[in-house]
């Protein structure tokens, strides 16, 4: 049993997952992804599209991945600095040997999971080594 990805759950998170939409505080400018309802300063927030290129701060090569990711194991997870904020996301199109801290990465749209019982497929943003 994992986090349940029923159709309503997948549907309501589509915006931030499909387009890399986060929240930005109207008072202090703090940016968050996934978006939050209130800034940590207490300010109100608005939606903002995040930059699609960033720098890999650190990463992990994950072997004991969940059942649904196991066929792709190992999975590389990274902490990415987008300038306005940082995100944790999967790194694709790179082997463990190619990945290194400090490398430039860019966002791509990929399948991120499927619920075994309902068959619902979720898509979202992942990052790959920057091309060019």
């Amino acid at each position, binding site marked *: 049993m994992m986090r349940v990805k029923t159709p309503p759950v997948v549907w309501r998170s589509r915006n931030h997952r499909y387009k890399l939409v986060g929240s930005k505080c109207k008072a202090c400018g703090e940016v968050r992804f996934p978006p939050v309802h209130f800034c940590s300063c207490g300010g109100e927030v608005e939606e903002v599209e995040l930059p699609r290129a960033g720098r890999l701060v650190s990463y992990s090569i*994950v072997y004991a991945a*969940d059942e649904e990711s196991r066929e792709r194991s190992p999975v590389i997870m990274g902490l990415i600095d987008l300038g306005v904020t940082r995100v*944790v996301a999967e790194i694709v199109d790179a082997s463990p040997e190619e990945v290194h801290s400090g490398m430039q990465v860019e966002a791509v749209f990929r399948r991120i999971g499927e619920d075994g019982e309902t068959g619902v497929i979720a898509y979202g943003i992942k990052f790959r080594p920057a091309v060019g």
Partner: protein
Amino acid sequence: MYVTRAVMEKIDRHYERGVKDLAAAVAKKALEGIDGVDYVLVASSLSYVQEPQLDLGAHIAYSLGLRGARAISVEAGEASGLAAVELAGALLKSKASRVLVIGVDKLTNFTSAETYAQLSLLYDEGVNMYSSGFGSVAGILMRLYMERYNVDRLTMAHWPALMHANAKHNPYAMLRFAIAPEKVLEAMPMADPITLMDSFPLGDGAAAILLESRPKEALAELAAVEAAVGHPNVAWSEDPLHIESLALAYGRLSEKHDLREVDVVELHDSFTITALMILESIGLAEKGKAAEAVASGRFSVNGDVAVNPSGGLKARGHPIGATGVYQVAEVALQLAGQFPGLKVEGARKGLAVSLNGFGSSSYVAYLRGVE
């Protein structure tokens, strides 16, 4: 308020016993010769997934023959145990004079792979949506630590080695054998640079403490408990290696109490990196220096301050929602000179530190010895 009883079950794969059985085993001993309690607080977390029972506190209280007592269920992820102790403290300051706190949790009703997947529920949805597996965030943090501070993998491995050396003497610990630091590097990779030996074993457990406002005798005084919530996602921390919520909770505590020269600490080493981050976030080690300090013996039982003489989450074990109650029981027994494993001689001041995840919430309990 005072800790007057402290009871623990050995953490293990208790296939033959359920949540109620484990809770009853510790509660029975904690209540021996006691004429009723005002409140029963039941801390549990993963059992809500593995052995679902809603209104767990009331069901357990009744199963203990405590009809008419007041019961509260406390769920705060990995910090559930200390969250229940904090709430017990508030009740003792207002309307209760005797409170039983039970920590109980179940991690072995499913396969290990299923259990690790369930444990990702402890983390924020934003980190979670990739189904990347338990340990991925810890792996990111560990690499960041090693690269930023130029610490090699073998130096980091002294933490699990120390925990195993301590747990060997603790009859309630799950993993009672010593390991060499080199063995940590040879273990199965989990979330590189993390191996399976950097994380806790999956085991069930239960612990109970009795807290009283004015007892005739006690194991230790529960001087105060502080808490704070913080970033649910490490990507949001200004410095992902600094646990802001813990520094805040610890700061609140140290404003009111002199926490210098603490003798014994039981802290939340869910991973090797979590232990180092905690040591640095509460100032027991300088930033970037905790790993070397561990390797040099500063936190061994005969070092400057004994950290996790129980063996910690790594080797004593980590029955998620029960762990905080184990920690308080262990610190209280150390201060009373009655801990059945490695003893911290002459200990007068002790801390228990518990987190959920990497600090989505943090709790610190301060205990003092009694004459």
